C-alpha cells in the first residue's frame, strides 16, 4: 500500500466560502412539529474537504437541501462568500447554482432519461458561458472531462443515461462537475450505492478534482471510516445538531462527544476487537 500525502493545511485562516448562523428547519405545525435541523452554525473555508457524518434521520440531507437552496430555512441565515445569500428570485438562484453544485446518492435518478449524454455535458459548457464556442472546442472540452473520470467520450456520444452502469453514471456526474467548475460541491452519499472497488475510484477522483479546481467539498455520509479517510474537517450531527466538529484526526482518533464515541465503536474494524455488547437488542430502534 503506497502512502498518500496528507496536507496538514490550516483552513481556518482561508477565506470563508459558505457559512451559517443559527440555521434551523422545522417541518409541520403544532403537535406534528419536527425540528429537523436545530440552530446549527458552520464555517466552510475555500478548498476545504468537509464531511458531515450522522445516522439515518439526523438531518444531514435536510441541511444539504438548505445549503443548495432547495429548501428555505425556517430561521437563521446562510452566507455565501462572506455575503448573505440571496436566492429570492429564479434568476438569483440560477446565479447561485453556478457557484454550488451537487452529486446525489442515486446515480440512476440524477439524469434526465430523455437527454443524451452529449446534451448533459453541453448544458454544462453553455451554463459556464461557452455557448458561442466552436463545436470542435466543445468536443475537446467534453473529451477532456470524460478523460478525467476514465470514461471514453467517443463511446458515450449518442447514448442515453440508462445505457450506462451505476459506477459509470456516478463518474459522469463528476465529469459534469469538472466542466462546471463550481466553488462548492455538495456530495450527498455519492458512494453508498456502489461497491468497495468503485468507491475507491470515485473518492480518488473527488480528491483530484478538489486539487485541480480548488473547490470546497461538502461530503455527506454515514460512514465514519470514509469521512476519516477523505476529509480535512469533520462535523458530527445528531438529532439536527452538530455535537462535535474539528480536524478529522482530532475528532475520529480522540472523540469527545458520547455520540461520536458510539458511532466509532459501531463500525467494524480490522485491528481492534469489535465490541458487540454495546448495542441493546431490546431497544425499539
Amino acid at each position: 500500500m503506497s502512502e498518500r500525502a496528507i496536507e496538514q493545511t490550516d483552513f481556518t485562516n482561508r477565506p470563508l466560502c459558505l457559512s451559517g448562523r443559527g440555521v434551523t428547519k422545522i417541518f409541520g405545525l403544532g403537535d406534528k412539529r419536527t425540528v429537523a435541523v436545530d440552530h446549527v452554525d458552520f464555517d466552510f473555508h475555500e478548498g476545504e474537504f468537509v464531511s458531515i457524518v450522522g445516522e439515518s434521520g439526523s438531518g444531514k440531507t435536510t441541511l444539504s437541501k438548505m445549503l443548495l437552496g432547495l429548501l428555505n430555512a425556517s430561521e437563521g441565515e446562510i452566507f455565501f462568500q462572506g455575503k448573505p445569500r440571496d436566492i429570492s428570485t429564479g434568476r438569483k438562484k440560477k446565479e447561485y447554482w453556478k457557484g454550488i453544485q451537487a452529486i446525489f446518492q442515486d446515480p440512476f435518478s440524477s439524469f434526465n432519461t430523455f437527454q443524451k449524454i452529449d446534451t448533459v455535458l453541453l448544458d454544462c459548457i453553455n451554463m459556464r458561458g461557452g455557448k458561442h464556442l466552436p463545436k470542435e472546442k466543445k468536443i475537446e472540452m467534453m473529451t477532456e472531462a470524460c478523460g478525467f473520470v476514465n470514461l471514453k467520450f467517443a463511446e458515450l456520444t449518442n447514448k442515453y443515461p440508462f445505457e450506462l452502469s451505476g459506477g459509470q453514471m456516478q463518474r459522469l456526474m463528476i465529469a459534469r462537475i469538472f466542466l462546471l467548475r463550481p466553488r462548492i460541491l455538495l456530495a450527498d452519499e455519492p458512494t453508498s450505492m456502489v461497491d468497495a472497488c468503485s468507491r475507491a475510484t470515485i473518492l480518488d477522483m473527488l480528491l483530484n478534482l478538489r486539487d485541480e479546481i480548488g473547490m470546497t467539498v461538502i461530503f455527506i455520509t454515514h460512514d465514519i471510516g470514509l469521512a476519516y479517510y477523505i476529509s480535512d474537517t469533520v462535523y458530527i450531527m445528531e438529532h439536527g445538531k452538530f455535537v462535535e466538529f474539528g480536524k478529522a484526526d482530532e475528532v475520529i482518533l480522540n472523540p469527545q462527544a458520547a455520540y461520536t464515541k458510539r458511532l466509532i465503536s459501531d463500525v467494524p474494524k480490522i485491528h481492534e476487537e469489535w465490541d458487540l455488547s454495546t448495542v441493546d437488542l431490546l431497544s425499539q430502534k
Partner: protein
Amino acid sequence: MGKIMLEVKNLKTKYVTRFHEDVYAVDGVSFTIEDGKSLGIAGESGCGKSTLALSVMGYYFSPLHYISGDIIIDGKNISGMKPDDVRKSILGSEIAYIPQAAMNALNPTQKIIRFMEDVIHAHDPKAGRKEIRERAEARFAELGLPPSVLDKHAVELSGGMKQRTVIAVSTILNPKVLIADEPSSALDVTSQKMVIKMLRELMGKGYIKSMLFITHELPLLYNVTDDIMVMYAGQIVERGSAREMVFDPVHPYSHGLMNSILVPEEGTRGNKLTAIPGAPPNLKRPPDGCRFAERCKYARPECRYSMIPEKSFDAGRMYRCLLGVDELKEVYGHE
C-alpha cells in the same frame, strides 16, 4: 474437524437471456462449510455472489438454469431437484435465505405473526395457532426482539427492526444452513451491529448450524465470519481464514480488494486506496485463460492461454493464479 453441513462440488449455473445467449454466472465453484462455522463471500458487483446464493439453495427459476455440480446439505444431495419441491421440502427447514432487500420482503397488509404461521404451516400443516404463537414468542424473546412486534404490521417497524424480524421468521425452523445476502448493506452502523449480534446469537445457541454470508464490506466480513472466499467473474479466486485473507491476501485481485478497506483507525488515513482499473469480463464469452488477466498488473502472456487451476497451499488455503505464492508476495513487497 466438524461434520460437514454444506458441500458444494463444481457447481455451474447460467442465465439465459432474452436473446438465448448463455451467461455463465457461477462457473465451477466448490466449497464446504462445517458445523458451527461461517463462510463469507466477497467480491465486487456483478461477480456472481448473489447468483451463487440462489444456486446453492436450488432456486432455479428462469432465467437461472442449473448446468452441473452437486449441492449436498448434511448428507442430502439436492442438486437436480425441481425448484418447487425444493421450496416445499428444503427451504426454511434445511436452508434459509435472507435476501438483500429483506425490508421489502414483508407483505404490508399482514401482521408479522402471519408470516410465522406461513413458514411453520408449509412444513407442519397440523400446527395450531396457539402453538405457533408460543413458539414465535419464545424465539423472539430469546433473540431480543419484543414479542409485541408479532402483532404489528411491517410499516410500523424501522428498517433495522424489519431486517431482524425477517431473520427471526426465516430461521424459526432451525435450518442447517443460513444464507445471508448483504443483510446489512442498507442499514446504518448501529442497526447493522444489532443484526450481526443477532446472527451471532443464532449461531451460538445452535439454531442455525452454519452460515454463508455475502457482502462487499470487508471489515464487516472480517468481524463476522471464520473464513473468507473471494469471488471474481463467477469463479472463486482465493479462500482462507478471515485473518489470513485480510492481512495476507495472495491473489492479485484479493490484494486489490483488501486495499480498498476504509476503517476509522489511526494511520489508515495516509494509505492510498488502490482502485483496480477496468471492468470485469463479459460472462457471455469468458476469456480462455485467467479471468482477471485483463486488469492484473502482474499478468504475463501465458496467463491468457488456458484456464488457471485452483492451487492449494498452507493449511486449507486455496488460490487461482499462475504465479507462485512467494513470487506474488515478493512483488507486493516492492510496491
